């Protein structure tokens, strides 16, 4: 199912994914996803365990191990990196896409100072001398609002706090000014006050660089704060995607609705009363699923839902093309906001 390519065709998307499929053995982790990230905008990808969001992020960044079978097209700033010979690919990738991992402690080399780990990029890709690269690394750390960047550059990952490590990862990903950033839940493990600072940092940085960001999360609040566009992922497929304000105001898919309602109830419900809950658990990947993956948990399900898989179709009466949902019983739409 092709995403509306008619949208702003004169502007090259930071990321364009067409019918991406990722399989581990027989099990599909990503089951035909098409997605766009516009330059200068944030597309949030929200999903839970086994939604396939991490596999999607890794596939888009071309970081999956060989064991995963990946098909489909991934264009970064209009270019297909895998079409390049291996050596060119390696040389260009850091300047095209920056990947920010969830667990910064694991994603940084424990025996090298963090400054060196950033400086490596300049040494290898820009041919800078060691001293010049180290200085540049300190400047990158200052850019992500680290106090005393010189001292931090000499520190090892285990000596820094979680928030600082995550800033280091962001600095590393942005060092060569790539047009696309892929962030896989970078604030999930952080305190809420640290998360708040990272989110506002990211928005400011993006305003400066104009890069597109694909931000993976499971937290609707983070989506509300960051996203221009949101894609909701469930069981390896996109079940709804559209402009963030519109989706938040009038969600079409029952899963999106459920997520929003859960959060709203948590924030504003009467204390001591039971919370609104979505029944059941997220499904595990399965090779032969009939019907809609969300049906077992869906308050609106009918027999059709268990027999026929709904396809992504344009949401009726929305003024923005590109707002899609995959549901046999979509919510009645008011005008998109």
């Amino acid at each position: 199912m092709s995403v509306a390519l008619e949208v702003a065709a004169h502007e090259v998307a930071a990321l364009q994914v067409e019918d991406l499929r990722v399989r581990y053995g027989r099990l599909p982790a990503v089951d035909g996803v098409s997605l766009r990230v516009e330059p200068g905008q944030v597309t949030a990808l929200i999903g839970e365990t086994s939604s396939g969001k991490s596999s999607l992020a890794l596939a888009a960044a071309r970081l999956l191990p060989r064991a995963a079978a990946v098909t489909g097209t991934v264009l970064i700033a209009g270019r297909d990196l895998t079409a390049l010979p291996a050596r060119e690919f390696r040389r260009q990738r850091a300047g095209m896409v920056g990947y920010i991992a969830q667990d910064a402690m694991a994603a940084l080399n424990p025996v090298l100072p963090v400054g060196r780990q950033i400086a490596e990029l300049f040494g290898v890709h820009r041919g800078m001398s060691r001293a010049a690269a180290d200085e540049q690394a300190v400047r990158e750390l200052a850019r992500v609002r680290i106090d005393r960047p010189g001292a931090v550059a000499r520190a090892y990952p285990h000596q820094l706090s979680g928030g600082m490590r995550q800033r280091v990862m962001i600095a590393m990903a942005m060092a060569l000014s790539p047009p696309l950033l892929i962030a896989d839940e970078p604030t999930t493990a952080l305190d809420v006050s640290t998360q708040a600072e990272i989110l506002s940092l990211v928005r400011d940085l993006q305003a400066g660089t104009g890069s597109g960001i694909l931000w993976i999360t499971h937290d609707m609040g983070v989506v509300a704060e960051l996203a221009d566009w949101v894609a909701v992922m469930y069981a390896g497929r996109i079940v709804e995607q559209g402009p963030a304000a519109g989706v938040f105001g009038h969600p079409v898919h029952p899963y999106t609705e459920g997520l929003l309602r859960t959060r709203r109830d948590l924030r504003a419900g009467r204390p001591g009363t039971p919370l609104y809950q979505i029944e059941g658990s997220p499904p595990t990947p399965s090779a032969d699923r009939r019907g809609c993956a969300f049906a077992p948990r869906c308050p609106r399900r009918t027999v059709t839902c268990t027999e026929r898989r709904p396809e992504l179709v344009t949401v009726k009466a929305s003024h923005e093309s590109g707002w899609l949902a995959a549901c046999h019983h979509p919510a009645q739409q008011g005008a998109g906001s």
Partner: protein
Amino acid sequence: MTAPAPQARPAVAARDRVGDGGSHDGGVCVLGFEAVSKYYRGVAALDQVSLVLTRGATLGLVGESGSGKSTCVRLALGLERPSSGRLTFDGTPYPRGRRRQRPLRRQIGFVLQDPYDCLDPRMRLRDIVSEPLRIHRMGGRDTDQRVGRMLAAVGLDDAPLDSYPARYSGGGRQRIAIARALITDPAVLLCDEPTSSLDVSVQAQIVNLLLEAKRSRDLSVLFVSHDLDLIGRVADTLVVLYRGRVVESGPAAAVRARPRHHYTKALHDAVPADHPARRVLQARTGLPPASGAPAADCCVFADRCPAAQARCRTERPPVVREADGRSHACFFPLAWPTDHGQTDHGQGEISS
């Protein structure tokens, strides 16, 4: 060890108690921390923390990383002893020694954060849930039935008793953990971030399960979390911890709506928005990072507080108890307009 006297009031001066279940007559103190401090290698993980869990109440302990909330949990479970101060259960101090603590352990069930770490992957479901019964010599011929009833109560009716944990999702495992926690029919349930590692769509299920368990078994619950919203939803009383000290406590609704302490307010302000049109985090510059270990005689939040003044850096703010069961530890607490058009500055009597 003498049998606990359920009606006895804790024999500790009123000035050491912060937060008393939101009711003026105090209620019966089921679990109490009395000026508890805990040091690791000279650094204070807890510094004069006092709190009271009254019978039938839910006490929410809010803190981020480094606040000392995990230390509180370990102390409450008897896994470690405080460096100073003491813990009481039903009015009597925690006994020393594992053997003497056993009757106490029977009365405190606990559910911890990581559902993938808290169940022995080599034990079958039946053994996991019945283990506390065996430890406390409450087993018998009907163990299997009790396990079955408990699993049904947590929503795992059809779970085969000889299955292994690997078969269950995060939510399922947490349910098993809850079943295990409640099987000895404890008086107190201690929950340490029970939903933080779970999917969002499953969190509400587990929280609802805990709420229902509390209601039907008349439990007293100590709920520890970093999520201010979640705690506000489930707890009657809130205690806010920052770097080992209690900075504020009181009835949950009041503390959330009209916080006295600047840290509580900062926590509140850091929660992301509900809707893209109402973003709150955009213009934030955030708080400066914390400096090294705080000195003993200053406010623990002084180096980051937007309202900090000279006094905050040289004197430790005493605990101030207000009329409605609220307390705070701040020289310059936030003021809020009352319904009568006046301003409530949070005055009260100094209790330490």
